[in-house]
């Protein structure tokens, strides 16, 4: 049996354990927590976009539903975070099954529009089902998680809570991808007809990936809710979907390190651009645009490819296309 975590990743893990203690302010630590949560959302998006090759525009629905589900379960029923978060994952997964079952019969743009429509419907529900969600006023005073009677509330403990979930999800996704199931996903992304011709049940695999993706997004939502302790229907808005898509495109579709880099850049860059004042978001937009124009495979592949070319100088162009 292989170990849970490969030795070569230990250095990275240590870096991330030390990181929150090195950063200067609680504001930056706050960003680190956010980066972790959004990384989960981006990883979930990539499972559908990068592995089964379907452009989903509904990821915020699962993010938002996960947030509301965990918050409501924890607060109204007085159930601890550890169980409410599982509730969030399950509810997001069930919703993902229904939405996936309907929308995955469609391809390409039609699929994208359907998922977008579903997300809008979920947002309308969150806005109008006031008895449950308190509507546009937002849902407040969400309890913090606690362990052995200690509240996980401030940035550093919450950072580690998020970190553990991120590592766990990375391990799950990696194992999923390096398995017959993951190869079936790749086959579907590359050539759907051929996948079918060798006996792969394309629809079932698509729904499966979609449900797993929804569950991870639900987890991210739950983590978000218990961290900020306030959520509003905005969480189901298109801006979170587009943010996750940006992270995936900028970092690199279909690669776990790529998506993580994308999430890191997308969370940290706007903040470092604050010195640019009002031009901040415009500059950010231009940087993203340039990234996509000049590194269409994502930052990670460009850098990895560049290093590879450097190491074997004979001009042997190695294309990195399979999963990393």
């Amino acid at each position, binding site marked *: *049996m292989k170990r849970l975590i490969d030795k070569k990743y230990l250095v990275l893990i240590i870096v991330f354990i030390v990181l929150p203690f090195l950063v200067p302010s609680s504001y930056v630590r706050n960003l680190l927590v956010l980066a972790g949560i959004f990384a989960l959302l981006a990883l979930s998006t990539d499972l559908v976009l990068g592995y089964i090759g379907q452009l989903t525009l509904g990821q915020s629905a699962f993010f938002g539903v996960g947030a509301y589900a965990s918050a409501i379960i924890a607060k109204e029923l007085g159930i601890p975070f550890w169980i409410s978060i599982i509730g969030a994952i399950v509810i997001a997964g069930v919703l993902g099954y229904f939405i996936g079952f309907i929308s995955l019969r469609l391809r390409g743009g039609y699929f994208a529009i359907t998922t977008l429509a579903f997300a809008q419907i979920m947002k309308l529900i969150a806005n109008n089902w006031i008895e449950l969600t308190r509507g546009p006023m937002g849902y407040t005073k969400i309890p913090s998680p606690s362990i052995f009677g200690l509240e996980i509330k401030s940035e550093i403990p919450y950072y580690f809570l998020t970190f553990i979930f991120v590592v766990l999800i990375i391990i799950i996704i990696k194992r999923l991808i390096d398995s017959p199931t993951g190869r079936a996903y*790749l*086959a579907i992304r590359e*050539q759907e007809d051929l996948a*079918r011709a*060798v006996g792969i049940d394309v629809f079932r695999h698509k729904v499966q990936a979609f449900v797993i993706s929804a569950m991870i997004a639900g987890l991210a939502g739950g983590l978000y809710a218990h961290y900020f302790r306030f959520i509003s229907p905005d969480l189901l808005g298109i801006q979170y979907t587009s943010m996750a898509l940006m992270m995936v495109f900028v970092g690199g579709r279909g690669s776990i390190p790529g998506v993580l880099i994308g999430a890191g850049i997308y969370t940290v860059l706007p903040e470092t651009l604050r010195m640019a004042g009002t031009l901040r978001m415009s500059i950010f937009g231009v940087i993203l645009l340039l990234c996509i124009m000049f590194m269409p495979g994502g930052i990670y592949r460009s850098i990895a490819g560049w290093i590879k070319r450097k190491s074997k100088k004979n001009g042997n162009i190695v294309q990195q*296309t*399979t999963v990393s």
Partner: protein
Amino acid sequence: MALLQVENLTKEFGGLKALNSVCFDVSEGEILGVIGPNGAGKTTCFNLLTGYYLPTAGKVVFKGEEVTNLPDYKRALYGIVRTFQHTNLFPKLTVFDNILIGCQRQHKSTLADALLRRKKFYSDEELLKAEVKRVLAFIGMQEMADMNAENLSYGDQRKLEIAIALAANPEILLLDEPAAGMNPSESAGLLKLIKEIQKLGITTVLVEHDMKLVMNICERIIVLNYGVKIAEGTPYEIRNNPQVVEVYLGKRK
């Protein structure tokens, strides 16, 4: 009993009968050719056999079991495996991975086995890799295992397509114009390969334009024209069938 029986197979697209009450049998171990001019319904027939389309009427029976309405991926699991008219492989994956995906259905471990990395998962992965190597050796592409499929020569790409289909462990292999676009030496290689496949005990149905290949390799040929079967017989019989000659070359004046 025939391995595959086709009874009154009909497919209509709107008002057009692309295939009209076609009947034929495929016996175990043979190489059957399906020929006909463009638009004769060859590919439609093919797509009905593989479940890519569902027929308007008629039956497809495989090993005594009706598979007429089974979706394509399920037929592949039964052992009816196809290739495509236009090169169809996983261009961005390596040759090895292409074949590995072909073997997919032989993997018996579950998703839980994979996520928990149980012993069953590893042993199945090993089995699959051995199977891929076997297929690679069979088609003689061992040296190209790590190349991306898109970087192969055209002839090798078409060979790889057949390898993917073989990896899926077919009982009956349906090849849709495998020689299309091949040069004579590539097409001679293909002929050899199909003969080798026959030695494995796999039945082959071939839809093909390359007459030389069809006449050389097929034991039996079916000729379609305007969706109707107009002739069936050995290559010799087909070559001397006046109706077939007329369809291909026109009437003698």
